[in-house]
């Protein structure tokens, strides 16, 4: 593992600070509220949310930075993972819903359904939900990628059909007939694994889980990019035709990286839902997918740690600005898009690297 981070100062910093946070934040949180060093639970959950979004950014960086596919639909995989986890959390509510139905969730009773739809079966088991969190995005990514890469759809066209994919999913999930809560999505969660989502301990555990997931996700991505296959991935990005002529099965490599990235996004979504407390079709909206790109672009493409850093920084700015100056937030976000592409094509990480070499 250490060898993995040999030439990766940024990665060492990222993992180091994450480990520090895992140790330090529970201690600071346990301090009395009067203390100036006290870290409120509210902020713990917020930070946990940023970490899941960082994991999403990581998955996008792998596909965009290393593989060269500008995906405009990665939020779809994130949302699918989130929905799978949401379904588990829904089943955990049991008879504590408004209609007190043991089997059916409130919205199903409201729609006058008599029995649980087939695709909800098994979601009362945690392991089934975890499996689905990774399986559902993986299957979609596999099907989509299999068709798209085999017929060599690339560049702009690929970007646009990934956007169409997430848009179509959003429209579909808005329908009540889809059986996933329609407009309102899934919410009102109570427990996870028998622990109340409201308790501070659960919140802390979810934060720790997000941090650990980010560390593992980072190491896996780094493992892939450092491996021989990772070199081929970069080769595909820079000269797809040449790589193909050298005898590599370009579409297979693309497909596996794409599927892995989708699973990573799914896990991020699954960790996101219990901390935010709701999942609705809006998560599929094309805007969300594009926002992830700006996190990655600001942090620095093809660096991995830059993506994670960018996600945390920009989401912090978003939380701050949408509360303090709601009028300004879109100007800032839009301005960032323009500024980064024009002035900082390598992102903040590129800036730091340049300083380091000087």
């Amino acid at each position, binding site marked *: 593992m250490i060898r993995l981070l040999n030439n990766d100062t940024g990665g060492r910093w990222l993992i180091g600070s994450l480990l520090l946070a895992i140790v330090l934040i529970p201690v600071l949180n346990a301090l009395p509220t009067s203390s100036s060093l006290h870290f409120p639970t509210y902020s713990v959950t917020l930070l946990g949310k940023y970490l899941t979004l960082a994991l999403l950014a990581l998955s996008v960086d792998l596909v965009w930075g290393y593989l060269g596919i*500008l995906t405009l639909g990665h939020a779809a995989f994130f949302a699918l993972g989130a929905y799978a986890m949401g379904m588990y959390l829904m089943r955990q509510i049991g008879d504590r819903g408004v209609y007190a139905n043991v089997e059916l969730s409130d919205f199903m009773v409201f729609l006058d359904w008599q029995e649980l739809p087939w695709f909800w079966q098994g979601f009362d088991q945690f392991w089934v939900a975890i499996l689905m969190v990774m399986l559902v995005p993986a299957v979609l990514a596999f099907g*989509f990628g299999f*068709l*798209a890469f*085999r*017929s*060599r*759809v*690339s*560049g*702009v*066209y690929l*970007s*646009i*059909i990934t*956007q*169409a*994919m997430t*848009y*179509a999913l959003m*429209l*579909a999930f*808005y*329908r009540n007939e889809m059986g996933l809560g329609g407009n309102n999505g899934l919410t009102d969660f109570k427990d996870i694994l028998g622990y109340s989502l409201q308790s501070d301990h659960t919140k802390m555990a979810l934060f720790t889980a997000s941090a650990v997931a980010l560390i593992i996700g980072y190491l896996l991505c780094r493992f892939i990019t450092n491996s021989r296959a990772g070199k081929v991935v970069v080769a595909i990005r820079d000269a797809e035709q040449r790589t193909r002529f050298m005898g590599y099965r370009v579409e297979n490599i693309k497909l596996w990286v794409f599927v892995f990235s989708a699973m990573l996004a799914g896990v991020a979504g699954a960790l996101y839902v219990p901390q935010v407390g709701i999942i609705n079709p809006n998560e599929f909206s*094309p*805007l969300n997918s*594009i926002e992830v*790109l*700006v996190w990655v*672009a600001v942090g620095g493409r093809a660096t991995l740690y830059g993506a994670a850093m960018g996600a945390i920084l920009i989401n912090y700015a978003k939380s701050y600005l949408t509360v303090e100056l709601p*009028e300004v*937030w*879109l*100007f800032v*976000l*839009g*301005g*960032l*898009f*323009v500024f*980064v*592409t*024009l002035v900082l*094509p390598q992102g903040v990480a590129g800036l730091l690297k340049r300083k380091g070499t000087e």
Partner: protein
Amino acid sequence: MINQWLVNCLSWGLGCLLLVLANLSQAGTFEVVEREQALIKAKFDQKAQIMASWYEADQVQAVHLMQLMLNSQLYYFKQDKRLYQVEDASSGAIARRIHDGGLITLKKKRDIKRVSINNRLRSVFRQRVVETQLSAIKPQDRLAAAEAIIGDTTPELMATIARLRAQEVDASVLAAFDLVLAVATLHSSDEDQQRHSIRLLGESLYPASLNALNGFLLTYPESRLKPMVSKYVEKIKGKVDFYDSLETIYFGLSLGSVLVLAGIGLAITFGVMGVINMAHGELIMIGAYTTYLVQQLMPDHIGLSLLVAVPAAFLVSGAVGILIERGVIRFLYGRPLETLLATFGISLILQQAVRSIFSPLNRSVETPLWMTGVIDINPLLSLTQSRMYIIVFCLTIFLLLLAVMKRTRLGLQVRAVSQNRDMAKSMGVRSEWIDALTFGLGSGVAGVAGVALSQLTNVGPNMGQAYIIDSFMVVVFGGVGNLWGTLVAGLSLGVANKILEPWAGAVLSKVLVLVFIILFIQKRPRGLFPQRGRDAKG
């Protein structure tokens, strides 16, 4: 208490007096007052007489009153004993005075009483009303009256129609008369006459004829003419289906025209120049807001303002487009994916700018009168005019753009730069200048689309987002760099959407169309009409 009552009485009396005086000043109003009060007091058997003499004196008003009585909308006020039209007799409703059109608000339901009629009067009045309508001066009025009574007549009316038919000169009114008569002769004992009626009704398209024929099948289950009638029923049903599908295609074409309008600017910026302009939707939005502003400036000329808005929107959106090109995009040529990000950022800025300037609420743009209304093709098919205008507008814009691209010097240079920049430069084309102009042209067309869309949807800061994905789908599906492809793609996607809608629902049919496009791109990554040749971009 008593004082109060006295004051009320006095003021009421004074009011009456003034009313009477006011009425006296109008010529011949004594008669009107007399007739109104006679009608109010009259018993059922006298009412026919009164209305008949009224009809002699003032035909238009008498017919109007008889219609009101048939619809149970004629009332009189107990206080002033005058006639009022009341559509909904409850307290707070508006009552319209018959003789001068004055409006009053009802305080209590008990203040008014209906001028009632019985069944005999009903048929007498109806006969009179229909007779008058059938001998109206304008042929289309006569036609409407005749169409309304197909399958719904009385023996007296039949006699009237037979009489009027002899004097009728307008062919379509004659045909309608024949149908009215045919419904009656359907039940005649003469088989030849029956056959003739069946043929007449079977060839016509009115829903009432179908009902009459179906009625025939039920009334005479043993008739020898049954197979003939069934054949005609099938035929009419077939025609109903046919016109239904025509209407679906018409709806589809109008939806498709919206898609083409939204996408055609993008066909220039994305298709010809290769710039992935995510701010395209916002340029449409700017066009729509320009329409709104122009309309605010000339509130008395809604129709004219729309015509002014078209060039205004072209100029405003085009100018914004040129600004975007000069300020951002020109630094990013050759990096298409980064243009996508930068223009997306611009779209966010434009959205927020509009939100800050105009408020986040939707603005409504008025539709001029000449755009509303319906064109009746036949009894089964009527086309809404606004959709017709959208289709015509879309085709006009398309042809203009095509002419610019194929017939002007600018178009030639644009194509030259997009095909081979270096070669075009060496021939003396100022490629930078052409880039800016092309982008401005595409943006301006997006603005013009905004004018049209402002008539269909709400004008708000988010309206651009609704069209951006559709626009890209249309351009990619049609084949990048091909205007005709955009037209065909937009229209066919619109029609496909409307065909799917009845059995899949609006949302699901949209999803299906998107899935179809995703699969289609796998099969033909360059769209319906790909560019060919050495310079086709890979």
